[in-house]
């Protein structure tokens, strides 16, 4: 695949390295000439010195034949514009933009970016997972299906301990996939499964039902 990366900072650098080792054709576009020289010295001529938001630069590097366009500069607005120009002027089939403000995830999707990647959200979620009092954790988002997989922990203060799943009246669209007891093997929860303190429940839900699921499963 021919992959264009805008931004030769740390993210762009390691991304290029990883993709090169997979055998892809890579081009980095970087504004700072010094960064460019450093990258070219190390990886061969893979870095083009210029502004990745400028149509003339994108034309010169053959953006119209790129399979994938990834913008990873430190500025959300630059990543947005680079991807939009690539997508709407050069018809690149898939664009990925790094974002710093998690709020921009929905915005970027609405504005035509195929995949916005929010490192901030990922870091926050990874940390939240390690906070033991956090009852609900995102495990995976299936954005094209409008669903997500979450984990709900039944903490010792949950009001639902000792109750069966069927008595809880879970939201209809909820699919409970797995129940991992504190001790013992994971099971597929049935309607007569009884919740115990320390259980981890893995569920598949539409994102808007998150709060609903958490309160029904824990009673708090």
């Amino acid at each position: 695949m021919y992959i264009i990366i805008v931004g030769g900072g740390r993210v762009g650098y390691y991304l290029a390295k990883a993709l090169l080792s997979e055998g892809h054709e890579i081009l980095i576009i970087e504004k700072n000439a010094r960064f460019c020289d450093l990258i070219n010295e190390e990886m061969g001529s893979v870095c083009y010195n210029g502004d990745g938001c400028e149509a003339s630069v994108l034309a010169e590097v053959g953006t119209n034949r790129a399979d994938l366009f990834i913008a990873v500069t430190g500025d959300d607005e630059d990543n947005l514009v680079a991807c939009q120009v690539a997508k709407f002027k050069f018809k690149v089939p898939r664009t990925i933009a790094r974002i710093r403000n998690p709020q921009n995830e929905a915005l970027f999707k609405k504005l035509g970016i195929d995949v916005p990647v929010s490192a901030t959200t990922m870091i926050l979620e990874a940390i939240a997972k390690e906070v033991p009092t956090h009852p609900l954790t995102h495990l995976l988002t299936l954005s094209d299906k409008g669903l997500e997989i979450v984990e709900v922990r039944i903490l010792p203060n949950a009001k639902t301990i000792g109750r069966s799943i069927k008595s809880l009246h879970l939201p209809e669209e909820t699919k409970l996939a797995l129940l991992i007891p504190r001790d013992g093997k994971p099971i597929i929860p049935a309607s007569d499964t009884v919740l115990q303190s320390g259980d981890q429940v893995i569920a598949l839900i539409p994102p808007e039902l998150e709060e609903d699921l958490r309160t029904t499963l824990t009673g708090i």
Partner: protein
Amino acid sequence: MKVVIMGCGRVGAQLAELLDTDDHEVTILDIDAFSFKRLSSTFGGTALIGNGIDQEVLKRAGIEEADVFVAVTQGDNRNIMAAQIAKHIFNVPRVICRIYDPLRKEIYEMLGIEALSPTVVFAQLLREKIETKVK
């Protein structure tokens, strides 16, 4: 009309003053409080510190009730992003955006953003001046 202006540079400040004189309700945004020194003491609108590509800041500036949004910061991309937020998230009836780069201006006009390129406008103006002098 209620107008929100992003960027209190020379153009933004001048525009804010003109609209204020014409009795429009003006809110002007800038990330740097120092920029507001460009506004005269008689300016009757609101000056607000904040980044216009942040939806929370735009809400505080009253974007939800605005009739017009104008993006005139120094950064083309910032203007473009803010204009798209105003248009597609807050449905502001009229959104105008300054884009210095003529190529980028063309692309975003195709995408339905009302854009002005000072580069193009000024070059044309100069040409007119030069050519009329010659005649």
